[in-house]
């Protein structure tokens, strides 16, 4: 009985993973490689052949490449600030963590309130006398503004998750290491780069992997701010599945997102590898 107990406890979760994780992912792979019941790469050729594919691909990549580093720095700054604080720590942490609970769709709508034509950006600029008529920002003529708005919304929304992981990770580092470094003459900056950051690697791994994955899945923010004007991979997946009713190509898109996610996860794991004996 006792020997079987752990397996019994794991059974529901394992079965669930099997049915709702492994099986469907198998299905995606099969679906992306078949068309009308035959094995083919046509889904992929159709996908890459479509004019929106490379735009969607590069938009997603650029978005990730710009947003993630900015967020990493902001999250580290927020975490360090919080760490230094003696009073009001809990309150500040709560405020910083708020966007964690906000969906990408809501974040998109939040920034829509700022960027739309009768929005707050125009109102602020008007109040300062910079403009006298509201400007159109989110039109297809100014794609880069949409891109910028998406970047801002993403940075605003998803920095919190990295901050929380990093704060939690910093909490696991005993104060003594920093104190020891201080005694040996390290400045605050040196302590940060030579003690805190290296010891933080496991947390940075988690934070980066989660965040990069979320960046590849960017969808609702873009829909809210730019509709389909600014194509991204997840948005195209949705379009093919829903509007064009072509599940094969949607599955091919899914494979691209999946491939990017796994590849970048491995890269992060490799770059921030911590040898087993060197963990806290």
């Amino acid at each position: 009985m006792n020997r079987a107990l752990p397996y019994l406890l794991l059974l529901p979760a394992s079965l669930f993973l099997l049915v709702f994780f492994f099986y469907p992912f198998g299905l995606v792979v099969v679906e992306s490689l078949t068309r009308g019941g035959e094995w083919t790469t046509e889904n992929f050729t159709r996908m890459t052949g479509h004019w929106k594919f490379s735009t969607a691909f590069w938009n997603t990549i650029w978005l990730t490449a710009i947003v993630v580093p900015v967020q990493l720095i902001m999250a580290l700054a927020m975490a360090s600030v919080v760490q230094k604080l003696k009073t009001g720590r809990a309150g500040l942490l709560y405020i910083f963590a708020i966007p964690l609970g906000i969906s990408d769709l809501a974040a998109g709508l939040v920034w829509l309130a700022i960027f739309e034509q009768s929005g707050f950006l125009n109102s602020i600029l008007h109040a300062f006398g910079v403009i006298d008529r509201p400007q159109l920002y989110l039109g297809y003529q100014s794609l880069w503004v949409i891109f910028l708005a998406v970047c801002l919304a993403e940075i605003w929304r998803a920095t919190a998750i990295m901050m929380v992981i990093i704060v939690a990770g910093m909490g696991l580092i005993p104060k003594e290491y920093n104190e020891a470094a201080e005694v040996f003459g390290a400045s605050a900056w040196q302590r940060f780069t030579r003690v805190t950051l290296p010891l933080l690697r496991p947390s940075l791994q988690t934070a980066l992997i989660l965040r990069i994955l979320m960046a590849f899945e960017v969808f609702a923010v873009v829909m809210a701010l730019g509709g389909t004007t600014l194509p991204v991979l997840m948005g195209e997946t949705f379009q093919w599945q829903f509007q064009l009713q072509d599940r094969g190509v949607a599955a091919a898109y899914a494979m691209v997102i999946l491939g990017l996610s796994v590849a970048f996860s491995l890269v992060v794991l490799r770059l921030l590898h911590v040898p087993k004996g060197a963990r806290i």
Partner: protein
Amino acid sequence: MSDVTIPGPRREEVNRAGRFLFGAGIALLVLWVLVPIWFLFVNALSAPSEVTGFPKRFWPSFDLASVRFFWNFQGVTNALWNSIKVAVLTMILSIGMGAPAGYALSRFDFPGKEFFRVLVIMTRAFPLPLLALPLAVMFIRTGLDDTVLGLALVHAMLALPFAVLITFSLFSGIPVELEEAAWTLGCTRLQAFVKVVLPLALPGIAASAVFAFVISWNEVFAAAVLTIENRTLTAFLLQSLNVSPLPLKFAGGAALVLPALIFIFAVRKYLFAMWGIANR
């Protein structure tokens, strides 16, 4: 020692300037997080004519016409109710399956344990919302398509890895000796769990349940793919982005954000504990 001491007044000045910068930095970050949310609520709590008007005031008029418009809009209450149902189901499913697994991981050593743990962690390297694509087909076959349960199953898959890892760390934080002491004092394994472990773990389990609720509440992609008639609030808002007037979007956005604010506040004590261990 004396030769490195900076003369009193100058050091004080440096300190004061430093403190000012530090305070300004904090204020800036707080504004960065809060002001966009403020704008959303200003819009939601103003009359539709004010929302589309220009220039805008930065203070809500507390005219509830937008909210009423949103509330009475065809399908909104239904979507809201669906969102709640799906989220509650997600919460029950993910904790119901995740907590036993977390307990097994924290309390037993058994062959295959590491395999399961890695498996769960690995799911994080996959873009889980994509699961909705193949599952859409599977659900049509099983009659789960466009149902609250079907979507809740997918959301439970999103929340399950977190539920497992979070409860794993929660249970690991409760010393085994407490349970062992209960056994020596006459408890069966189940009694010891109910009388000793559960009371100690309950607040944490509640926090992770809330977290599962938020994951489901905020999810857009799978909800949009898997529901047509029984849309959740996120799916409803996404599908009507092109057609719905601005006041509806902003009131909807506020409706999405408000519960998130409350929930994050409710679990704020556990956020960091939960993420700290999710690293390992």
